[in-house]
């Protein structure tokens, strides 16, 4: 089942790919928290629910409880520049162009397409102490702030490892690839891009006992025979075919 048009346009393709969840579940989980208004369940009111159509996307994924909690409060609308060809994947090497870590290069650890955000590991971070008590000074962890993909981050040209602009072009095999406009070098898609919540790569997915294996799946046990379903069942049960019943007529 597809998400409704308004929700479908909101949740990004990269989010759905990474989550590996069915679209119906994402829609259901987004509407789960009190993100709308329900009429009171008393006699005078018809049971109606006004569902929220526009969501404010955050660092939390849309099917989480934190997202639902953040969306309970209505906030000002965020204007996001529409980017038709999304070019940033998990594991890409990028250079940060603004802020404290300007000029530094890092790996993309998270992609939030709905806000045009990319989170670079270790860069553009603020540090906070977690678990501080009277005895223990606390653990310092870096929480990276997201960077806008339009102008705060740039992919690196493989020729000289410097920021560049890219274009999507086709190579000899017909595959769509990112190409640096300056040098013409292809920027390969990182293997981390294939990662989803369930596996790092499809080939290394850890099979469980409830998964059908490839060998069992590709067996074709169907033998085409010139017999009806009833005849097949009779054959397997050992029931012999008898004489046909007498002709019946409808007058």
């Amino acid at each position, binding site marked *: 089942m597809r998400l409704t048009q308004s929700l479908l346009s909101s949740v990004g393709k990269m989010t759905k790919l990474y989550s590996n969840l069915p679209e119906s579940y994402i829609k259901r989980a987004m509407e789960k928290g009190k993100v709308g208004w329900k009429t009171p369940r008393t006699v005078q009111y018809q049971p109606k629910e006004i569902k929220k159509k526009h969501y404010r996307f955050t660092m939390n994924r849309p099917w989480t409880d934190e997202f639902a909690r953040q969306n309970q409060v209505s906030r000002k609308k965020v204007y996001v520049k529409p980017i038709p060809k999304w070019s940033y994947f998990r594991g890409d090497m990028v250079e940060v162009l603004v802020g404290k870590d300007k000029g530094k290069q890092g790996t993309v650890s998270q992609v939030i397409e709905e806000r045009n955000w990319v989170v670079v590991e270790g860069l553009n971070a603020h540090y906070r102490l977690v678990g501080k008590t009277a005895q223990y000074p606390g653990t310092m962890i870096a929480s990276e702030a997201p960077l806008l993909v339009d102008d705060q981050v740039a992919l690196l040209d493989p020729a000289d490892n410097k920021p560049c602009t890219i274009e999507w072009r086709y190579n000899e095999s017909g595959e769509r690839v990112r190409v640096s406009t300056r040098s013409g070098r292809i920027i390969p898609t990182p293997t981390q891009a294939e990662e989803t919540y369930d596996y790092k790569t499809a080939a290394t997915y850890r099979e469980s006992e409830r998964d*059908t*294996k*490839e060998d069992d799946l*590709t067996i074709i046990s169907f033998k085409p025979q010139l017999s009806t379903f009833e005849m097949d069942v009779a054959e397997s*049960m050992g029931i012999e075919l008898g004489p*046909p019943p007498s002709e019946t007529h409808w007058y």
Partner: protein
Amino acid sequence: MLLPIPTSLVSYAQCRALHTSASLLGKRNFRKFLLGPKAGTLAFKNERAKEVSFRKKFPDIDIPDYGTRPTGAHRLGDSTFITVPEMIPELVVPDLTDFNLKPYVSYRCPEVVQEEFTARDLFNAVYSDKITADFERGALTEGGQPREPSAEEALTPESARQRARGVHTDIWEK
């Protein structure tokens, strides 16, 4: 005689000078038809019927059961319920030893695309080998019919239909 109009029900644009209809102007109110006790499984409804809030809201209601089959009966003249084992449905499940198809499919499996198996494919599977062999040997007539028909080739539509109707049941056999 002019009846007073409650302003909350009717807007001033709809207001008429003379009123010949009832005060609600023909609108029907279905808000008071409560469908609470009809939703859910029978077990759920029976559990809910024990709650105080439910009993207060629906003091004299019967829980509809929509034909769920009982697994026993009440003792005559008594309120004790006796479970009869024969009334509990027996699920006949096939033996799944050496059956390797599971509920889910591993992500490692390649995308398997199978086209629809049509009547033409069935014909090809059953008849094509013999036809090609006969053609190479020269055992086909001018019209393309086989000179030495096999069992399947000798079938006519009527005989095939009779053959299919020949399947009887062995339930009534002693």
